């Protein structure tokens, strides 16, 4: 049942974005554009920062991608998966920017050091103590770069395995494996703090 709800939510989220696309393409609806911006700006910026290693540059890259999106709004409805489209556009522009700057920007997504969004699990939920939670968060933040990136895309952006594989130019099998590794490390961290306590 949990599973079905999850798939249903994914479908709903997808339809919502399709709807925003239509409103922008057909009605030039600025509030729809804003909603899209709000939904994707932060996550795309974190993704880009992993490549260009500069929050400022990343924000400009993402802002540029959104400007382009408005410019091309009449063709917006033709994009099947806008989320994936945005991520690929940001990836390409970020790689180009780091090549142009010839700085130590990451040229391969394998080495991307991506930051995760800061989440807050309410200790009042009594799942565990704040300290235990802290050490689990540390474990997540210390995941190997590639596992962490895939974890981010799967958890925060709710991307499907095949889309992650497509975006990162890796196989679905690799996505599956890396995410399993991430889950195992988190489970080990949970095990060590929760078991120690009880």
């Amino acid at each position: 049942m949990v599973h079905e709800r999850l798939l249903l939510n994914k479908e709903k989220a997808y339809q919502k974005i399709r709807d925003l696309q239509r409103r922008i393409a057909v009605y030039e609806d600025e509030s729809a554009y804003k909603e899209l911006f709000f939904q994707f700006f932060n996550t795309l910026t974190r993704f880009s920062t992993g490549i260009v290693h500069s929050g400022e540059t990343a924000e400009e890259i993402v802002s540029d991608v959104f400007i382009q999106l408005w410019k091309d709004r009449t063709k917006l409805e033709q994009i099947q998966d806008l989320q994936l489209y945005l991520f690929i556009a940001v990836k390409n522009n970020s790689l180009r920017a780091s090549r142009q700057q010839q700085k130590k920007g990451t040229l391969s997504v394998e080495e991307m050091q991506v930051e995760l969004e800061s989440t807050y699990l309410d200790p009042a939920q009594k799942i565990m103590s704040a300290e235990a939670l802290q050490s689990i968060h540390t474990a997540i933040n210390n995941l190997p770069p590639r596992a962490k990136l895939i974890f981010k895309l799967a958890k925060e952006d709710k991307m499907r395995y095949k889309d992650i594989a497509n975006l990162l130019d890796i196989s679905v099998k690799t996505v599956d494996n890396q995410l399993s590794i991430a889950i195992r490390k988190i489970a080990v961290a949970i095990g060590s703090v929760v078991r120690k306590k009880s």
Partner: protein
Amino acid sequence: MTIHRIWNLIARKLTGEASVEELQELDRHTEEDSKLQLDIDIIQALWESRPDEAEERDYLEATYILHLDRMQKLGIEPHNPDESESIKSEPGKPGLRKRIWLVSGMAGMLALTLGLWFFIQRDQPSPTNALANTNMPEQFELTTRKGVKSKFMLPDGSQVWLNAGSKLTYGRNFGKENREVVLTGEGFFDVQKNIEKPFIITTSSVQIKVLCTAFNVKAYPEDGNTETSLIRGSIELTIKNRPNDKIILSPNEKIIVENSASAPFEKTRTDAKKPVALTANTLISIKKLKINPLDSSVLETQWVENKLVFRDESFREIALRMERWYDVQIDIQDPTLEDERLSGIFTSETVTEALDALKESMSTPFRFNQADRKINIYR
């Protein structure tokens, strides 16, 4: 079945990639191993945890404004008539990130910082009434006690709303020979037009000269600074002991002057491109007013409508304002609480209700007890 298989199944379950058979397989494992079920529950809770949306939203609001600004420069701004006027930022200013940082760091969403902070040398202490002792042999005094706000009509037809714990004095000749008043505390002024006799307000640290305008002056002695917010018209402001340096304020701007400012200006607003650190530490800044996007009311003057509004202010500042608003004395016993920043609006709440609400929104909860009009706040 390997251990790895379990993590694999959990990952697939969380992402919705698992098939029905795989879900059943995972269920069989958890039936055998109750600890595994606990782990999965925790992982799932973590997986579903999301960042604080309200916090993100403020940042995004500011970011989006700057994004529109970039678009506008390219001539492709999407249409947005209500917001673009009031929050347009100046062209050619620092990059996206730097400005966002200023916005979110200082005031939250719509307080776009225009002039940057600049520093002015602090002078020797001077008598607080240096500007105030103009010739006023016979004085009229309008006062409001703490917890009370009042509206007054001045002899020249100008209106003034005095916030709690404030005082306005003016001489016998007010309206005849001059239009000069002295303000302690906070007042909102709606000034009658009279080109011959400019309306002059003097506080302990600034003097404001106006022709016809509506604006708010906040100059409580116990606050660290004096804030002047302009709603319409224009005003000319001079800082104590520096009569030759005049600052012209435009509508929807406010100027904040640290209460002991006295040295001459080293920089004017227009050429202050970046923070300039001079020899010491008196601060002056000019900011956009905080406009509520829902009804475009200006937060700085909400008290006139009987609302105590604060946006991204420290608990220490809020406590000071609550003291005046409710006529109580608030002592924060634990300094770690003082710097927490909060936003909120109080209208009809009692002081106890207000504190209860604040208690809920602090990251470190506090306790308080009240004896008569004295309130102590503890961790």
